[in-house]
């Protein structure tokens, strides 16, 4: 199992669909993708994690790094996740307070601060 990444644009948001396992081996690919998007001027990101089977602290670190980058451009980074096993990791690290977490891509795309 590897990491799969695909991006699409919905209005002014860029949706990054992530699948597979985000760990110390695959997280750099996600980091590259987020950095590339920000460098290309996409500052409002929605990371769809519904296809993610595994997430560890390395993955959390990449997401926090992504958030930091978009915020430098007054952007946003929203997550889509309904999986309890993944949500738990955000809860125990206190990151549910840092990331807006939505139940669907539609909801995340429609959300405003």
């Amino acid at each position, binding site marked *: *199992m590897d990491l799969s990444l695909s991006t699409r644009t919905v209005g002014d948001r860029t949706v990054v669909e992530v699948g597979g396992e985000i760990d110390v081996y695959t997280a750099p690919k996600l980091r590259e993708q987020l950095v590339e998007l920000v460098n290309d001027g996409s500052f409002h990101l929605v990371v769809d994690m519904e296809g993610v089977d595994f997430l560890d*602290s*390395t993955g959390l*670190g990449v997401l926090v790094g992504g958030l930091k980058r978009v915020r430098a451009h007054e952007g946003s980074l929203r997550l889509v996740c309904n999986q309890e096993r993944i949500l738990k990791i955000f809860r125990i690290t206190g990151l549910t307070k840092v990331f807006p977490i939505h139940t669907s891509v539609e909801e995340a795309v429609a959300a405003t601060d």
Partner: protein
Amino acid sequence: MATVELRFSALPEHVRTARLVAAAVARRAGVDEAVLDEVRLAVGEACTRAVGLHQSNGVSAPVRVALTEDEKQFSIEVGDEAPRSAPGDRAPGARGGEGGEPEAESEDEMGLAVISGLVDDVEVTAGESGGLIRMTWPTTPAPLVP
């Protein structure tokens, strides 16, 4: 002696193997199915941390994972051979090898935070010859506490 012992080169691509093996042995040992996700995550975090410590300290030795099944508990020990001058010390610049990526610095601590958030019974020790994370789970259902 450990039920299953695993030694792997300190490379990120092998951490997944350690997770899979640990989860398989834990399942066989009778760790509750609902807890297996936690076992997988915790052992992954411990191995990720060990790989990072070996890489940043130039340690060529493998990372060691010992999986031990006892009568009522299952324990995992993840050992690294990265020297610390004092317990709990981190080598300067550890995991900062990517030109100061902002997220890299906090990963080691976040890994430990995840482990301590997930696992009730965890011991972290470190000394001159390396560090050890020992995590234990019950293999029989815990009695209900009123």
